[in-house]
């Protein structure tokens, strides 16, 4: 088991966003979380990656309880988050961004040659090598997303969480990004994908969870979810009429 969450409550200051969330991700899976805006998907990823602290419940990563770990420590364990909106270091070059992605390798082992690690990323995304001395803030959206993925990969994570990688990207670029996600799984990575592009996400995922106002309202294999009417509901609105009058 890669990640297991048991009845997690979390939120920001006095606002509770997540309500008793339970879910899991097995090693080697691609799991996707879908849901409308404001349903708490990103908050869930923030809680796992240590950016916010859970109020109650358990987060277990590779058999370790990580509730109170700092974000840095969680990265050390091999769990990497690619945040929404990329969050690159815009005034630093592509290469510097990648070097920083490898920061924990360097602090684990002083002798490690980051150049070789960076070369591996370049073979995955040749476009980044062409632009290695360019400031990352000047890259196109797709290239930025590649760099964000590359930077996360630099820490050699086993488990990668992606927060809406397709946001703001042209359809063709989205396709490319999703292809990369599939190829990452082939390399043995486990992936938790939060997406607003439901169909595309479910197509590459093994399983999925559907969130609504901080709760998981539905889970199942991708096929089940793709054919489920409720998924459309979660996406296109809460359909409060049917529910409230039921």
């Amino acid at each position, binding site marked *: 088991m890669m990640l297991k969450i048991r009845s997690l409550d979390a939120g920001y200051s006095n606002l509770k966003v997540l309500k008793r969330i339970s879910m899991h991700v097995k090693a080697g899976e691609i799991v996707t979380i879908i849901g409308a805006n404001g349903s708490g998907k990103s908050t869930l990823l923030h809680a796992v990656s240590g*950016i916010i602290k859970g109020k109650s419940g358990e987060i277990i990563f590779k058999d370790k309880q990580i509730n109170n770990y700092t974000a*840095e420590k969680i990265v050390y364990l091999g769990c990497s988050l690619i945040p929404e909106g990329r969050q690159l270091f*815009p005034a*630093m070059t592509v290469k510097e961004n990648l070097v*920083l992605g490898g*920061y*924990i390798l360097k602090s684990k082992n002083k002798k490690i040659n980051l150049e070789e690690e960076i070369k591996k990323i370049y073979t995955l995304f040749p476009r980044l090598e062409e632009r290695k001395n360019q400031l990352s803030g000047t890259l196109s959206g797709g290239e930025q997303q590649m760099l964000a993925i590359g930077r996360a990969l630099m820490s050699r994570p086993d488990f990668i969480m992606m927060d809406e990688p397709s946001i703001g990207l042209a359809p063709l670029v989205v396709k490319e990004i999703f292809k990369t996600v599939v190829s990452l799984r082939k390399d043995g990575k486990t992936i938790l994908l939060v997406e607003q592009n439901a169909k595309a996400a479910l197509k590459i995922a093994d399983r999925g969870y559907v969130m609504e106002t901080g709760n998981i309202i539905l889970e199942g294999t991708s096929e089940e979810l793709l054919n489920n009417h409720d998924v459309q509901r979660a996406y296109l609105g809460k359909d409060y009429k049917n529910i409230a009058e039921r």
Partner: protein
Amino acid sequence: MNLNIILQYVFSGITVGSIYAVIAIGFNIIYNTTGIINFAQGEFVMLGGMIAFSFCKVMPLYLAIILAVIITGIIGSLLELIFIRHLKKPSVLQMIVITIGLSIILREIALHVWDEQVRALPFFTGNETSSVNILGANISPQVLWVIGITSLIVIGLTLFFKYTIIGQAMRACSENRNAAGLCGINTKAMVNISFILSAGIGALAGCVVSPLTQTTYDMGTDLAIKGFTVAILGGLGNSSAAVAAGIILGLIEAFSVSIFPSAFQDVITIGILLTILFIRPQGIFRSKQFAALKEF
């Protein structure tokens, strides 16, 4: 005004200007990693001079200076550890007030440890009467020391931030703290390092300038406001611009003496600060577009 005197002014302008620049860089380093303007920055300069002064009685000057830099660096680190680290999401007002409080405390401690007397480190080479002739102007060799050491500080820092992984990690923190954490960078440690660094370079500046301008326990506020002026002039957070801005301000100050009474010299500097804040808060070297993305 003949050429000699002009040159004299130019050198004195560059000398104070480069000290201002170093203080401004101190501001920038902490500002970049934390978003805090450390109002106690001027006190680091004072502490450097004072500590070195005490040590140089019992050991060679260079050792005293090294010790002063190290001790001030430790003080900077402690300040961060004790007063700043554990604050959860402090407001800007809170940070301003705390660092102002720190500056007062440091100053008062200095007053009780070293009293009110004006002190000065010995000249690094020669004494107050020795001079070097450059292009016909007689200047103290200490001026060359100041210019040399501040250039070394600037070059050293540039290399540090550009080529070492710690330096890069600090830059990463300043650009996006959350993302830096997600790269596994210990952001808290980086903040601490930024305090050590800016305290250390402040102390070094305080040592080299001490023979020329003397050191008193209450010199910090004036220096801080000058350093801040320079930091703003160059654009807060932009250290290479701070060097240029520092020299500009130093020259303005030096030449203003020939026009205005020296009692009003500071009024001119602060007038510049206010003017810049009012019309170009992003600094003279930065574009309007940059300013639009920031709040002042």
